[in-house]
């Protein structure tokens, strides 16, 4: 006899008590059904299993199902060690397990991922910020190349303004990520590859801002910062897109952790995520445009002063 305490999430154990079943799946064809289920709340239940001796130590998958919530699955939920004096037991064939209980809930639901929980919504803020940052940096890169081709001061102003807006987004991305890490991993910062590479990228772009602020000669400043911006963009791609994927990372979406990869981003999230990227990008574009207009006025004033 073994008792397992189960805490559900957004579950309806109490109201769906009549259709509630708990299973421990041993392999693909067999498992044990709980002989007794004591429900103590919508999210709390205790399942009692009558398991005899098994030949080896076995990891079992836990299934909790009812008519309203469908089936909840927890892989490798328990380890079964058999004492020698127990009578050998035969697991029930899973033909008894109702298989049609995988259901889609009606209405608007976000997917559930362990560790992420409700912070899966950070996809719309933290992740969308970084995506908008890439778009802004790309525009900055375009104008930097344009400057080198045409030597027009207008292109330099545009490149700088878009890059500054991107830096703002990058810093906010680091800050929001840090807050999330504090309440998920228990620390503001860990020496994780994804985090450190993002920090290095921001330092590279901070150096861009320092470089521009440090040179008074306008032509020299435009020339140097345009070249630097191209190098910074070239450095950003491996730092943010390649290296974190080569190694193991704690960050969701890297090294097998849940996030955007393939099956993790479902259509409910996409419905908000893509507009969020577009919105943040347009906001960044507007901020950059304000800067461009100010710089244009300043240049015009300089020219009229001469």
């Amino acid at each position, binding site marked *: 006899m073994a008792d397992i305490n189960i805490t559900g*999430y957004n579950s309806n154990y109490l109201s769906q008590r009549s259709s509630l079943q708990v299973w421990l799946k041993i392999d693909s064809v067999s498992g044990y059904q709980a002989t007794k289920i004591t429900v103590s709340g919508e999210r709390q239940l205790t399942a009692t299993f009558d398991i005899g001796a098994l030949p080896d130590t076995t990891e079992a998958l836990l299934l909790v199902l009812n008519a309203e919530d469908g089936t909840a699955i927890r892989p490798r939920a328990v380890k079964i060690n058999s004492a020698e004096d127990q009578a050998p037991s035969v697991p029930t064939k899973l033909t008894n397990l109702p298989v049609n209980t995988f259901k889609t809930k009606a209405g608007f639901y976000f997917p559930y991922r362990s560790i992420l*929980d*409700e*912070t899966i*919504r*950070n996809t719309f*803020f*933290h992740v969308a*910020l970084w995506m908008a940052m890439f778009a802004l940096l790309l525009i900055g890169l375009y104008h930097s190349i344009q400057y080198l081709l045409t030597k027009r001061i207008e292109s330099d102003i545009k490149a700088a303004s878009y890059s500054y807006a991107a830096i*703002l987004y990058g*810093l*906010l991305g680091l*800050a*929001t990520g840090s*807050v*999330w890490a*504090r*309440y*998920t991993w228990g620390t503001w910062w860990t020496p994780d590859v994804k985090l450190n590479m993002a920090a290095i990228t921001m330092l590279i772009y901070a150096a861009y801002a320092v470089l521009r602020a440090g040179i008074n000669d306008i032509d020299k400043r435009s020339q140097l910062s345009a070249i630097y911006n191209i190098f910074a963009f070239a450095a950003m791609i491996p730092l943010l897109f390649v290296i974190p994927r080569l190694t193991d990372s704690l960050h969701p979406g890297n090294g097998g952790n849940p996030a955007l990869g393939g099956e993790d981003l479902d259509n409910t999230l996409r419905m908000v995520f893509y507009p969020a990227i577009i919105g943040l990008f347009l*906001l960044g574009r507007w*901020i950059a445009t*304000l*800067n461009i207009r*100010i710089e244009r*006025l*300043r240049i015009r*004033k300089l020219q009229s002063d001469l």
Partner: protein
Amino acid sequence: MKQTIFLIAIALLTPALLMAHGSEDFLRSTGKIYSVVLAVVIIFLGIVIYLVRIDRKVSRLEKEMRD
């Protein structure tokens, strides 16, 4: 202007920070949803502070143009 923004920032952040230190369970409660709220507040404040900086740049430029 600067002071006002700073005070707004303090007023917005204080409850969250107090709870973060007082009972760590608040931001972790209901699936850590309040850490997302904190992230949204940070983004909002960051953008507002940047816009205020642009506002001051424009004001300075306007003043210079007038002189």
